[in-house]
């Protein structure tokens, strides 16, 4: 009797323990290989990127921080090779408030503080006292206007003393608050069955979208005067705000129209079958869905509007950009703060616009009920 042939493969009575992955595939080394040096082309890109970073980052840090001057009364005391930040200490109020009287700065600050709950009640729905909060948000523009302009026992400040970053904020926030409802109305008007309403909306939207904002601002300062009866004159700030609002309403309406178009007509028909009136149908069924879809576009329009508020400098208002230009030509600072003032102004805008765009991405994910 022959013994059973020896199997070609030796049977194991236990599992082979897993071997660790090669060092080149895991950990720091693996990460480097897959992300930076996966092919010769990728390696080339990495080297180019490193050279670029080396050329830009250390000199920039040196200029902004390590070789910079941070104190001094005038630009002449800035003797270091880097940036001259001394003006921030001396002139930041002018940068932020323009020519607003210093004794009334607190009013701007209070208005800004009161803005936080007003915005919060619009953005978040799970806050205490939400019902009263909504009313507060609605009445906030009036409160802010009284605080900033005065009247009702508070000292009046003419609007031509508004300036600096405060001017950008006031124009931007007013534009944002007004352009959304007007944009919704225009979008509904463009899709209305009534031909007069439709054509009026189309003409307004297309004409405004067809021309640069700057020409509208020129209209605001030159032509509005012609259109109004003699002796009636609007404050420059008001005219500018009217034009900025008109401009972004037209863009807003196109964003919202896109949202409206993506709602299937079954929704509309179902709402009609329920016997809802036009406005109820829009308010309860169509708009909540359409606005949700349009959020990224709406926020982008807001961001564009806020950045566009700097255009007021071309018609002689001194917003943050205007103040930067003023400082650059100020005898105390001339030739010293050309880049520094722009950098700080850019940072202000960046922080606000970047957070708005992040918030919109976040909101988009949260409201997205289709995926998942």
């Amino acid at each position, binding site marked *: 009797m022959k013994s059973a042939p020896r199997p070609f493969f030796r049977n194991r009575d236990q599992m082979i323990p897993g071997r660790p992955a090669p060092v080149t595939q895991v950990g720091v080394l693996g990460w480097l290989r897959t992300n930076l040096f996966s092919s010769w082309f990728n390696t080339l890109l990495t080297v180019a990127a490193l050279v670029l970073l080396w050329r830009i980052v250390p000199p920039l840090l040196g200029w902004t921080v390590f070789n910079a001057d941070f104190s001094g009364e005038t630009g002449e005391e800035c003797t270091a090779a880097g940036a001259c930040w001394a003006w921030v200490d001396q002139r930041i109020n002018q940068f932020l408030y323009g020519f607003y009287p210093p004794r009334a700065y607190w009013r701007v600050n209070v208005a800004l503080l009161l803005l936080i709950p007003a915005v919060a009640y619009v953005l978040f729905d799970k806050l205490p006292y939400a019902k009263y909060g909504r009313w507060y948000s609605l009445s906030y523009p009036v409160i802010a206007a009284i605080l900033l302009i005065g009247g009702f026992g508070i000292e009046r400040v003419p609007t031509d003393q508004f300036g600096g970053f405060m001017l950008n904020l006031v124009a931007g926030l007013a534009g944002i608050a007004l352009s959304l409802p007007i944009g919704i109305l225009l979008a509904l008007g463009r899709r209305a069955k009534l031909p007069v*309403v439709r054509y009026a909306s189309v003409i307004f939207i297309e004409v405004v979208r067809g021309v640069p904002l*700057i020409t509208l601002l020129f209209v605001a300062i030159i*032509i509005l005067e012609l259109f109004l009866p003699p002796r009636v004159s609007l404050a420059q700030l008001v005219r500018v705000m009217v034009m900025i609002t008109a401009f972004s309403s037209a863009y807003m309406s196109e964003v919202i129209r896109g949202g409206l178009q993506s709602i299937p007509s079954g929704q509309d028909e179902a709402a009609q079958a329920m016997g809802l009136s036009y406005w109820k149908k829009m308010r309860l069924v169509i708009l909540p869905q359409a606005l949700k879809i349009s959020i990224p576009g709406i926020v982008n329009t807001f961001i564009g509007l806020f*950045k566009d508020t700097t255009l007021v400098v071309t018609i002689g208002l001194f917003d943050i950009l205007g103040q930067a230009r003023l400082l*650059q030509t100020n005898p105390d600072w001339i030739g010293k703060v050309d880049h520094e003032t722009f950098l700080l102004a*850019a940072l202000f805008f960046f922080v606000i616009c*970047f957070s708005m765009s992040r918030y919109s991405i976040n909101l988009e994910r949260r409201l997205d009920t289709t995926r998942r």
Partner: protein
Amino acid sequence: MGGPSRGVILQLLLVLAVALFFAFVVANTKANLERAGLSAGYGFLWDTSAFDINQRLISYDSTNTYGRAFIVGGLNTVLVASMGVIAATIIGFLAGILRLSPNFLISRIVTVYVEFTRNVPLLLQIIFWWVILLALPRVRDSIQVGAFYLNNRGVRMPAPVFEQGSVVLLIGLVVGVVATILVARWARARQDATGHKFPVGWTGLGLVVGLPLVLFLITGRPIGLDLPEMGRFNLQGGFNITPELVALWLALSTYTGSFISEIVRGGILSVNKGQTEAAGALGLPSGLTLRKVILPQAMRAIVPPLTSQYLNLTKNSSLAVAIGYQDLVSIGDTILNQSGQALEVISIYMVTYLSLSLLTSTFMNWYNGRIALVER
């Protein structure tokens, strides 16, 4: 019963309100114009302008008319807008593709660039570049880069000089381009029919570049270069680009480029991942996959928003007025101040920008129609 009649009443009310508004505006305008002693109409376009324009594409001096000044300004707008569109498209596509690169460093650097330029006002960027360019050394201490001179008056570069016989070269170029298009058509037809490929790229290069080059040598080099030279006080010869144009162009193309890069990125991400995997399974290298599989499909999502970015760039070029580049709005502003014809000047702005927008969107719609998905 209640529906339609209420609609009619609503519309009548709207018409009435609009008519009243216009009557009010027209009456006021008339009264205001009469008080100011101005007459409405476009007759002023034939008056002498009496101001100079240093940036011009056609001949112009201060004895010319307002009408010609408008044309000069319009051409300047078209110049900076088309330069900007080309540069912004290149920057945008590069940045959009690089941001999706697996290379960690590159995608982060591009992200920082895109987020920063997108979220800072364009006007600030324009003035920033302008201030930097004005801080360059004076003409006498120009920075020389090859045949280029950089100074606070702008960039002076070699200018081509066309002598007799250059027309032949132009004809050669046109023939080359036409021949390339014909060859490409024939090659595509052949590839569809037989599957054989034809090196269209190299043939085209030979026809478009080689043919004029050969003609250039045969006809005895009719095109020369006028090199700028440092004279005793000033640079002589060559061709000068003003710092205003450079600043506007840089800012417009980097700003719009960052928006285009987001559109390109979105377009590429919208292409189903299976397409990449299928192309990989067929053995296509990644560069070819991007060029032949991903981008053609992504273009369908890219082109419509790209069109509106081009329109935005054209309209944003009017910010030139802030740094004194003499575009349509800037020159129109001067004319408005001199002649007082506010309504007419603004109407010219509107008509010009509206027709530029229409022209761009017509072209882009034609292109969009060509690349659109053909359902069979």
